[in-house]
């Protein structure tokens, strides 16, 4: 459990104003790196919370579906251009970002992942692949600036980031489809 202190240290480090400002200065790093890191922090914190509040998770997330739904809603919310703008302009939305991504996305994802069936897992990856393709399309080919705080070039970069990540996810889906992980390794 010593590892938990490293996770908390990383969590605090990422929230420090100079670090947060640096990461938020580039649109793609804001969305694809900072936000992802917050989700990962929640993912790593989950075992401690599961141990501390086992009843809570049993009661509210018995089969994993509520957790996955919460994860999807929170993630979809943070892919909206407007939510990023607000996080930069309003301090309480920034605070909401710091709290929602670890605790309403990372923690429920970890708690649900082992409870849901393989088809839900694959469905989730496919859903996010489709979302990423759609977001890539939107950000690359939108003629207008979608975020007030970022330039058009930032937006196009983010779009390509979405598309490339989607390509990687498709490769992963193909890989897990052709390889029986349980048997072959």
């Amino acid at each position, binding site marked *: 459990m010593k590892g938990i202190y490293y996770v908390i240290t990383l969590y605090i480090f990422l929230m420090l104003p100079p670090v947060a400002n*640096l990461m938020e*200065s*580039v649109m*793609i*790093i804001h969305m*694809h*790196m900072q936000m992802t890191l917050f989700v990962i922090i929640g993912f790593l914190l989950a075992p401690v919370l599961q141990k501390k509040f086992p009843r809570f998770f049993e009661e509210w997330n018995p089969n994993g579906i509520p957790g996955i739904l919460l994860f999807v809603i929170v993630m979809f919310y943070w892919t909206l251009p407007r939510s990023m703008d607000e996080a930069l302009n309003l301090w309480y939305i920034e605070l909401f970002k710091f709290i929602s991504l670890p605790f309403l996305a990372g923690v429920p994802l970890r708690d649900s992942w082992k409870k849901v069936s393989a088809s839900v897992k694959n469905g989730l990856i496919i859903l996010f692949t489709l979302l990423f393709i759609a977001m890539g399309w939107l950000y690359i080919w939108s003629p207008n600036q979608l975020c007030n705080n970022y330039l058009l*070039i930032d937006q*196009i*970069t983010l779009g*390509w*980031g979405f598309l*490339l*990540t989607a*390509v*990687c996810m498709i*490769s*992963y889906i193909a*890989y*897990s489809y052709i*390889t029986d*992980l349980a*048997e*072959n*390794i």
Partner: protein
Amino acid sequence: MEAIKKEYWKDKANKALGISPEDARITKSYLSVAFIAILVGGFLGLLQGMNRAGILELPVWANYYKVLTAHGLLLVVVLSAFFTIGYFYAGLSHSLGGLLPKVRKMAWIGFWMKIFGFVLAVIPILQGDASVMYTFYPPMAAAPMFYIGLVFIVLGVWMLAFGAFINVANWRKNHKGQHIPIISFFATGVFVLLFFGSLPVAIEVFYIIPWAFGWIDTINVMVSRTLFWAFGHTLVNIWYMTAISAWYVFVPKIIDGRRWSDMLTRIVVIALVIMNITGGFHHQIIDPGISESVKYMHVFMSLAIGFPSLMTAYAMFAVFEKTARKKGGRGLVGWYKKMPWGDVRFLAPFIAMVAFIPAGAGGIVQSTNQLNQVVHNSMWVVGHFHLTLGMTVVMTFFGVSYWLVPFVSGRVLTPAINKLGIIQTIVWTVGMVLMSGAMHWVGLLGSPRRTSYSTYFDNATALSWDPYLFFLAIGGTLLMIGVLLQVYAVFNMMFFAPKGETEFPVAEEEEDATPTPMWTERWGLWIVLMLTLVSMAYVIPLVDFIVNAPPGSPPFKTW
């Protein structure tokens, strides 16, 4: 020496695991080309070092830049790649129960494609139409034939990579639930990097060819440079991974020890595969067009690659100390006396490892923003890669050759050749320390790299470099003697040494080793993670370079 003699007679059972003549021929061919390349490339290096020190005037038909290009290409592309492939194909053959017939065929097709490509590339170099140096990115342009040659070299590499993948996949199909043997695990990692690392350079070269022919007027220099370094840096780490594979797998056996942690070894390979390609950015620290914040974040990526190296250093010294203590070594450092110092198969890789301490530290200096500004484009950089490639990697290759060449030739390492190897190792070490040390120092004093000898109208600062350049020439001369000894030893072991059985010295794991988890075998996942990381790292600068592209550059011939 005792250890060597004993090994001739023990492990008779190893005969059964020997290499088939067809597979041995592949490795012998690759190694022969590698060592011929070092002979020619080393001679060119000597000419160049003498010229750079102002001691030797080159004839008009062989100017400094032409010799530099040939030297770089022979040693960086030919020697290292041919040795790596020959070595790993012997490892695949030994550990996977022989190469498949179709893989053997692919290895030969790849061999001839590489040779053909190399001949195509060398012709314009000799004609003086391709003095673009090993870093062949625009705006300097060579004759189109040079780039077409490079295409064939890359295609040859891909042939070899896919050959290795087919052989490993076939083995996995027949050995479900087992770990890939450790040397083949390293080979898989190296060929994955060779394939994915050469993709960017293939794109770069396909983009350069129409420009070199004049079909398109201009080229995006920054895109080309970025694609080149994605490959260039990966290539560096491919040699390094080849060298550490010998440290992890063979050196423990040579000192009569065991491999220290199979799991750690495999995690080091995986970490190097995933994080490697993006390291290309630290070669572009003073390039324009990449914002400071992006460069700053890439420092983390580059330093992350240092982490598996620290794990390697720990593992190696753990093996040494454990083995020496088992043999009765005592004291805090007294155990080092129990190491087989008289065995070249140990001594050469050991000095290679020690050299990596300053070499790795120098690498960290260069990937740090401010320090890079001090040494960038100075002779320091040349000193750095002579220490890493010329010492850490090449000395490991030399050490390996003393058992690999006899193994594939069905001969033995004689005490005389072992002694020659020890002398060679000492000559090489002294030569490289002198040369690389002088290069580092004179670089700090401001002497530029990629520049032929000049006193800059007898400028006092430039004249102050001369004593160091003199050391460079002395070191270079010693290295040439080292090359001659090494090449003699290799061909002696290949064709003239007494016949006999040499073992393929794969070390066993520790008896009480914890079993390695099976997730280390998920190569598909590691590749997807690597691709994701590469996408994330390259999307910002590449989109910027392409969307906000400057007018582009016509081809330049500066020589």
